[in-house]
């Protein structure tokens, strides 16, 4: 942090994961579905959650979310039914950009991004406080152009690593990733209840291949205990479906994220 102005957005994401608000605990990447439960409430949530999370991930709702489970699909449909779109989500984020307390990643299936225009999106990203992209259906082989374009712009392009990913492929995947490497804990969709008996060997394997790049674990992580169990294994945890369920249940999302911290450090929320 000696020369913060020279950090690229991708580096800012890496730094936020590596030096989380709560030293000694894994960083928390909080996922919100854009426009859920409605556009106004969403952007309030985004600002509030960004004050307690280390990185904020905003998902662009899509009607056919191949990698997501029922919770995020339901939230996506609700958001779309209430008028959410990539354009409107960007508009809200742009208006509140100065109030965001942590780096922001945009998660989207490819088609809404293509419809907006990838080049245009990269120009817009800076204006909206977007530090990079996660595109779950753009696998390594199809992502070359995106990876190159993001690298040039200094934006993060986060690759996902699955338990099924062979070692040789994992190495290439980590090379192509920026911001962090997203280690998927299990085969399946987000929010899955059936975490594998022991995801740690896979997570350690990803960590080994990632080198200097931080690693965050995602899929099926919902409690403070889940996150505490990752301490010393990976650098951060991504919490999505559990946060959406909390919002559905009427809980305050920032409180929910705060409660994911180790009990001793829940009060120290300033960086």
């Amino acid at each position: 942090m000696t020369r913060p102005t020279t950090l690229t957005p991708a580096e800012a994401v890496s730094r936020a994961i590596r030096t989380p608000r709560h030293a000694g605990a894994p960083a928390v990447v909080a996922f919100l579905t854009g426009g859920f439960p409605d556009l106004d409430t969403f952007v309030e949530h985004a600002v509030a959650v960004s004050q307690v999370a280390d990185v904020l991930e905003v998902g662009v709702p899509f009607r056919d979310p191949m990698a997501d489970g029922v919770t995020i699909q339901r939230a996506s449909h609700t958001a779309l039914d209430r008028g959410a779109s990539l354009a409107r989500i960007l508009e809200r984020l742009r208006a509140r950009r100065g109030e965001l307390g942590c780096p922001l990643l945009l998660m989207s299936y490819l088609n809404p991004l293509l419809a907006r225009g990838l080049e245009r999106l990269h120009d817009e990203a800076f204006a909206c406080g977007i530090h990079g992209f996660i595109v779950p259906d753009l696998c390594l082989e199809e992502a070359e152009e995106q990876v190159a374009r993001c690298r040039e712009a200094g934006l993060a392009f986060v690759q996902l690593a699955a338990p099924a990913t062979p070692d040789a492929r994992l190495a290439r995947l980590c090379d192509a990733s920026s911001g962090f490497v997203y280690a998927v804990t299990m085969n399946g969709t987000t929010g899955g209840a059936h975490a594998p008996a022991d995801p740690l060997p896979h997570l350690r394997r990803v960590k080994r291949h990632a080198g200097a790049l931080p690693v965050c674990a995602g899929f099926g992580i919902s409690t403070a205990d889940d996150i505490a169990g990752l301490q010393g294994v990976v650098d951060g945890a991504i919490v999505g479906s559990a946060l959406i369920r909390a919002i559905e249940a009427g809980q305050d999302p920032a409180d929910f994220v705060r409660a994911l911290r180790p009990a001793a450090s829940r009060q120290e929320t300033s960086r």
Partner: protein
Amino acid sequence: MTSLDPNPISAPPQEHARPDARGRFGAFGGRYVPETLVPALERLERGYAEATASAEFQAALVRELRQWAGRPTALTRAERLGTAWGCELWLKREDLAHTGAHKINNAVGQALLAQRLGAKRVVAETGAGQHGVATAAACARLGIPCRVYQGSLDVARQAPNARRMRLFGAELVPVDINGQPGTLRAAIDEALRDWVSDPDGTYYLLGSAVGPHPYPRIVRDLQAAIGREARAQLLDATGQLPDAVVACVGGGSNAIGSFHPFVGDREVALLGIEAGGDGRRHGATLTRGRPGVLHGTLSYLLHDEDGQVLETHSVSAGLDYPGVGPEHSFLKDSGRADYLSVTDAEALDALQEVCRLEGILPALETAHAFAGARRAVTDLRDRLGRTPRILLTCSGRGDKDLGILEDCLGTGEATR
């Protein structure tokens, strides 16, 4: 009588050797899937290459196609219908194949592949239910547990097929989307979710020439038996190639299987017929969509300006899909094939004409091909200056549609 090709999956001529190594048909196709599925797709690609190189696999496929599935299917001259429409009309009778549609060609081939790859279970999606029935039957024959996802709207409107799947021992899972009765698109969403949770033990037996590489290629290769047989049968019967090959297009598997062996015959027009629905709501992806990514492939797609996939409608469940196989997108953009859409009403009208004049009850999907051919005759005759010779793929039989036909047309009793 045309015999079966001893190598049912044969390499196409070099100039048509598509897709490329990345699964591209020109700009279309590819593999847009979550990382979890990539190793499984790579395994499938290798497994398929090894299977096609294996004489043993090809022999097993020939045996099943001949002894069990009823190939080769007949080529029928439709004299009365041809006279009524002013053309020489030949029907490739996939409705006579086992389980009543071309879907069996693909289901048998992929079920054998699943067995070869050691799959513990098979999952499939289905629209009209023909692919579900074919997959359930093939899995029953090979002793592989099978689960089929079908939109709950389609389970209801194609009830006989739902019953057949269960009789074959398949587990049929009706799919809703956002609390609404689902169609084929929702069934594919759900089948993909199932597969992603067990990519190693589960074989996803995709039913159309859609989805991520290598599915569009595998399905096309297995369905190309339609066009290869028909081409040889027509040459036997007339000594001539057709002036046009006509087939209906939902995902596009019977059409690509019909077209592919004719792609090199530049003088043969290729005409795909899409679902025009009620005019307002439709499934006419190639004629009214624009390129986009859905279900793992880049192809023409019905989506809005935000990239959200649109709801479709067709009287025919098998054509009620917002996407289309990437090879059709390539054939359209390269100008090699033409696509047009016909409405529900036109399809229903053509269906009745086929019934009365030829004693054949085609599926509602197939009825679109008939309606499209009927409309195309004038153009073909004007262009050729003579009576056109049309080869039409009669992709399936309409027994499954009796309920819908009763709703749309009445029982036939009342009008007497």
